[in-house]
């Protein structure tokens, strides 16, 4: 069985999203047109959710110009899911406790990648990787019977892979002081988060994995208990402590 495989880059959200898609049932041009649909969807997500676009619905919501009930169904859905994630993380992830008001950026990447994956699956794509700047949603493994092997780079050393995860289906999200200093605030204290230096979370849902990774940056080891919640039984984490190179995992 041969796999038709297409790799593509989609430039949006202020980054480049890498898509690796293959299938044994549809050909390359069919995969490409599925990716084109995903591209349109991701552009649309950017238009609605970007906090860097003055006229996005999220920006207008933040300024109080519109109310959540006036927003697109997608934004209302994300609003609701953010609320659930806030409860699941006992408030360690709180998109309402952000300077400037509601900011779903910490959830929406994973959410949109998951959505993109289900769109592509519907089109007959079987093996999918969507990598948006280091947060990945995955489906169907790399090829039949083989999971995706995903390396996580060291938080301060871009050239070093510190850990490899093998995941067939699901999402893996990393939060931390990548790219610049800590930019996550502790919702409980309003101070800069001092929990983990880097937190990688994997599990079935991209948005939840995103939110949990952020929560662990805030909570550090104190957040370990979250993973005992039955709703989070399928989630795992791998965390590097802030003041040492110690790593712990659940």
């Amino acid at each position, binding site marked *: 069985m041969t796999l038709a495989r297409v*790799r593509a*880059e989609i*430039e949006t*959200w*202020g*980054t*480049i999203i*890498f898509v*690796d898609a293959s299938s044994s049932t549809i050909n390359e041009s069919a995969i490409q047109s599925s990716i084109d649909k995903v591209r349109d969807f991701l552009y649309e997500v950017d238009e609605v959710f*970007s*906090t*860097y676009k003055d006229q996005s619905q999220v920006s207008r919501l933040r300024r109080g110009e519109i109310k959540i009930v006036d927003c697109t169904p997608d934004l209302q859905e994300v609003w609701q899911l953010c609320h659930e994630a806030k409860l699941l993380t006992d408030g360690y992830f709180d*998109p309402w406790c952000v300077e400037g008001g509601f*900011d779903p*950026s*910490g959830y929406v*990447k*994973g959410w949109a990648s998951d959505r993109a994956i289900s769109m592509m699956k519907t089109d007959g794509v079987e093996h999918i*990787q969507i*990598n948006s*700047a*280091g*947060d*990945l949603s*995955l489906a169907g493994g*790399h090829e039949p019977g*083989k999971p*995706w*092997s*995903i*390396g*996580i*780079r*060291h*938080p301060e*050393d*871009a*050239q*070093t*892979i*510190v*850990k*490899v995860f*093998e995941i067939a289906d699901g999402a*893996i*999200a*990393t*939060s*931390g002081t*990548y*790219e610049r200093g800590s*930019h*996550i605030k502790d919702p409980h204290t309003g101070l800069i988060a001092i929990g983990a230096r*880097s937190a*990688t979370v994997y599990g079935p849902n991209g948005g939840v994995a*995103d939110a949990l*990774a*952020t929560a662990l*940056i805030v909570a550090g080891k104190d957040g370990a208990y979250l993973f005992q919640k039955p709703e989070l039984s399928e989630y795992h984490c791998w965390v590097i402590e802030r003041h040492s190179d110690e*790593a712990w995992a659940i």
Partner: protein
Amino acid sequence: MGAKRFLLIAGGTVGGLGAVLSITPPQFGSASGGTLGGNTLSGASAATTAPAPAQTQAAPAPAATTAATPAPAATKKSTKKSTKSTTTATTPAAPATTAPAAPAKAAVSGTFTGATQQTRFGPVQVQITVSNGKITAAKALQYPNNDFRSQSISQQAIPYLVQETIAAQSANIQGVGGASYTSQGWYDSLVSALAKAGM
């Protein structure tokens, strides 16, 4: 993920240089697995497609971390320009205890240069050094540097790409989390370098 991360990753955008994902030519024996940054990667190497028996014992393949500087052995061999003809030369007189049956293909060594790929930021060209069928070094012969912005992005992205290329085959990984840059240009040039290496 972090609230503001969308913007700052713009670095990756501008450069358009990035992750070489899915480098999995079947010949890559990643049996040596190795450790990177002191953490184990061996879990992943189990996933190798081809058993690649000979090359494991041929010589201790340099760990991927040290490989950034081309292993001397690899450079020496590259002058021979022998792709796959001289098995004995490449695999030092393999006593072949564990793998008496020679693999169908001799392990490749040498330096291989990929085709120049045009990206919207400028040309990208990759050169790889291969030792006993494993990439031990990768470098950009050409990369976008026509303005300050491209330069700084390239400086940031290329070391990453180099390491990712090496890590991807040694650990057999198909994606990188934690922050990632993507470049079809790098990937395409790499593919043509691999083709020249017969890998």
